[in-house]
């Protein structure tokens, strides 16, 4: 970076009650922010704690006599497919098995919570122009960032404390429970820091999302590669380069390495300091990375083309991520078979996921269903852009031209449908190419995996249609589409474990998908899901057509 003139002293700025550090008003902002998040933060913290504690409790109920897993289970749990997803099992103790799925996944959810909180109170606020109002009042220059970081930190701490307490409460080993807390603390605090920096780097909410969530995806993949590498491979070290890897390295209910907390806290401190120093170097509303000049002409002439243009950045980001995902899935697949050669283990894997076919097929069908949930997230993100466009009044400008509301909405739906199908298809094709080259049947593998990816689309469409219905009928609750998707994910992941009633689990469209590749393809559920999605989507469009806009 070039030398920068000494940061302007915060007191040099007009601040009615000049406090030395530019932190004047932090507390009132914090109170305001906490008020705005008084539902989001406690509910999320409670939900995450419940997620860890209740799924552990359910496992205890499932294996009442089991104090530790049989040796035969070790290979299953060391299976790279599972390790890539959930991290390596920390020990063969029942506590480790009971928390196997929730440690890393919960950490990722906590990172998302930290990201949402910090972004909401920095970039989103600033973009909406509200910060200028605040900035002109009795609020120091650093107060907003300070308040956002404090609230994010508080959210992480609250979640950690609740989780440790509840975990001990349901009978998990206390020392291990504290280590679980340390794991989540490391991950959560890291993303408070990452998001604080991301919010300074770019000048838009979407840019902040890209940096912070992109970092999360990279961190996840880096540790997936590190965790699944052979014991003697230098690649194992990769896990130490990712804050998510650190979380795994805490080895809750195994070695309980509390000292890893120091890594997380150090990273948090460094990132927050970097964020504050970046804040000094930029103007309100701008980012540190300059926004470049562009073309002065455009050939876009239809609302659909405009929608595609606006979705381009998001789509390309997801496409890159899904290509990488395909490579990772395809390269791990080869070792799945060698890890699992006993029939009991295969049965166990079946219980965790699919139903029939070879173990590799099971592996692919499980992972593709996850990938489909990810693609649903993309389609929700693209469809709910309509809400952002509407609330920012940009949509109004478009709808004041001869573009019909429904046509405009259909353009968004089309973009979401095509984008989610493409990323899935590309990911499956890449996985097929990589694995097919290993297995010596490129054409066949690609076709089977691509077909399997396509078979998940009806569930993606249901998620999309739910988002469309919310937007059309209850625009203020558009965000609930995300809650619905998380519920679908949790029902699929934990429905069996928690012994939830069948009808409840069946609420998730993803439970109705055929287990492809390997399983039998039954058309009925797919047709039914598609018809349901079309009906729900049409209801959403009809509501949108009738309601007040803006």
């Amino acid at each position: 970076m070039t030398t920068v003139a000494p940061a302007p002293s915060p007191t040099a700025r007009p601040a009615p009650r000049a406090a030395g550090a530019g932190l004047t008003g932090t507390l009132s902002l914090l109170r305001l922010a906490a008020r705005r998040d008084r539902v989001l933060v406690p509910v999320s913290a409670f939900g995450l704690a419940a997620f860890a504690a209740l799924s552990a409790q359910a496992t205890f109920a499932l294996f009442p006599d089991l104090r530790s897993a049989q040796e035969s289970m070790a290979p299953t749990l060391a299976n790279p497919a599972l390790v890539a997803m959930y991290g390596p099992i920390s020990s063969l103790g029942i506590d480790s098995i009971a928390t196997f799925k929730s440690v890393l996944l919960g950490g990722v959810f906590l990172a998302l919570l930290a990201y949402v909180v910090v972004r909401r109170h920095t970039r989103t606020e600033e973009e909406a122009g509200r910060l200028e109002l605040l900035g002109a009042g009795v609020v120091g220059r650093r107060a907003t960032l300070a308040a956002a970081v404090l609230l994010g930190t508080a959210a992480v701490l609250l979640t950690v404390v609740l989780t440790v307490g509840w975990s001990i409460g349901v009978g998990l080993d206390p020392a291990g429970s504290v280590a679980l807390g340390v794991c989540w603390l490391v991950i959560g605090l890291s993303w408070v820091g990452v998001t604080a920096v991301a919010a300074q780097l770019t000048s838009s909410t979407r840019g902040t999302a890209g940096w912070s969530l992109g970092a999360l995806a990279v961190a996840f993949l880096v540790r997936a590669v590190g965790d699944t590498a052979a014991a003697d491979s230098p690649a194992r070290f990769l896990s130490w380069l990712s804050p998510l890897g650190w979380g795994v390295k805490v080895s809750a209910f195994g070695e309980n390495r509390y000292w890893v907390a120091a890594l997380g806290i150090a990273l948090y401190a460094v990132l927050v300091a970097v964020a504050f120093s970046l804040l000094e170097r930029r103007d309100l509303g701008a980012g540190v990375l300059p926004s470049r000049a562009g073309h002065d002409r455009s050939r876009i002439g239809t609302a659909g083309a405009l929608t595609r243009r606006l979705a381009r950045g998001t789509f390309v980001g997801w496409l890159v991520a899904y290509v990488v995902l395909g490579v990772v899935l395809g390269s791990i697949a080869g070792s799945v078979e060698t890890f699992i050669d006993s029939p009991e283990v295969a049965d166990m894997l079946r219980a965790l996921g699919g139903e029939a076919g070879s173990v590799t097929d099971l592996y692919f069908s499980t992972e593709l269903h996850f990938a489909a949930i990810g693609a649903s997230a993309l389609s929700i993100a693209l469809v709910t852009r309509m809400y952002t466009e509407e609330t920012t009044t940009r949509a109004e400008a478009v709808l004041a031209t001869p573009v019909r509301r429904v046509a405009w909405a259909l353009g968004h739906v089309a973009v979401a449908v095509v984008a989610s199908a493409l990323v899935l298809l590309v990911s499956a094709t890449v996985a097929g190419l990589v694995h097919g080259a290993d297995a010596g049947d490129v054409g066949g593998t690609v076709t089977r995996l691509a077909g399997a990816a396509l078979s998940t689309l009806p569930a993606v469409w249901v998620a999309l249609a739910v988002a469309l219905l919310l937007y059309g009928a209850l625009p203020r609750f558009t965000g609930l589409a995300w809650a619905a998707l998380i519920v679908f994910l949790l029902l699929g992941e934990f429905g069996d474990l928690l012994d939830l009633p069948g009808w409840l689990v069946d609420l998730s469209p993803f439970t109705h998908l055929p287990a492809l590749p390997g399983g039998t393809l039954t058309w009925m559920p797919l047709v039914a899901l598609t018809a349901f999605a079309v009906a729900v989507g049409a209801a959403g469009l009809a509501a949108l057509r009738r309601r007040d806009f803006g």
Partner: protein
Amino acid sequence: MTSAIQVQGLHKSFGRTVALDGLDLEVTTGEIHGFLGPNGAGKSTTLRILLGLLRSDGGDATLLGGDPWREVEALHRRLAYVPGDVALWPNLTGGEAIDVLARLRGGVDEKRRASMIERFDLDPTKKGRSYSKGNRQKVALVAALSSDVELLLLDEPTSGLDPLMEAVFREVVHEFREAGGTVLLSSHILSEVEQVCDRVSIIREGRNVESGTLTQLRRLSRTTVRATLAHPVGAAQVESLPGVADVTVSGDHVACTVGSDYLGRLLELLGAHGITALTSAPPTLEELFMEQYRRASAVAP
């Protein structure tokens, strides 16, 4: 004369808030019509109904001879809209946004586009997020003026423009009218209204308070008259005149207010007493509007 916009008894509520309560509005083809009223009076709501964004709860609205809710496609080809707080796509440049909006409307008039960009002194290569408030406003104005339309719906279009650009805006709107266009201009800037509008409508709490030309509106208001007389006049004598009020007499000084129609009678009386000095101040626009904004309904003098 035909009407570009005809609104009768329009009603619109948002939950318990009544935004429009039987609004009437008529805009004649070829005029620049000022649309005034205090904050929350319902101006933006009216425009958004005319754009088919909101659905009215009752009453009639006709826009260019069509139904604004049903005939969105046909009507929007013939009009352009500029809001008071323009939001641009952060990743598109101003030039791109201008092209997109003008093309969606049916095509870019290259000559006008180039001349508007020049006159408004706009840099079209900047990304949407890096424009200042006034420059965002200019982007929307250029976009609206770069296609061939008959009607402009403008909702405080000059908020944030500097005085130089405001002058450009006035010129441009005049030219648009000269070329046969119609403009509905909602504004809080009275000098702007005074300079560009042929007629104005004042609304308050969702209802029409007054409409007409500025001269007509002025006549509804009272003129202040101060005179020094050679032969003092009795206060009662002045007060007895029709249309005269607020009379104060001290020595040879007299001051009062008078409705425009009764000014002649007052001067006659004062003349008979030998005027040595006289000032008469017609109401300023500010006074005029203050009075209208405060009044619940129009009261003729």
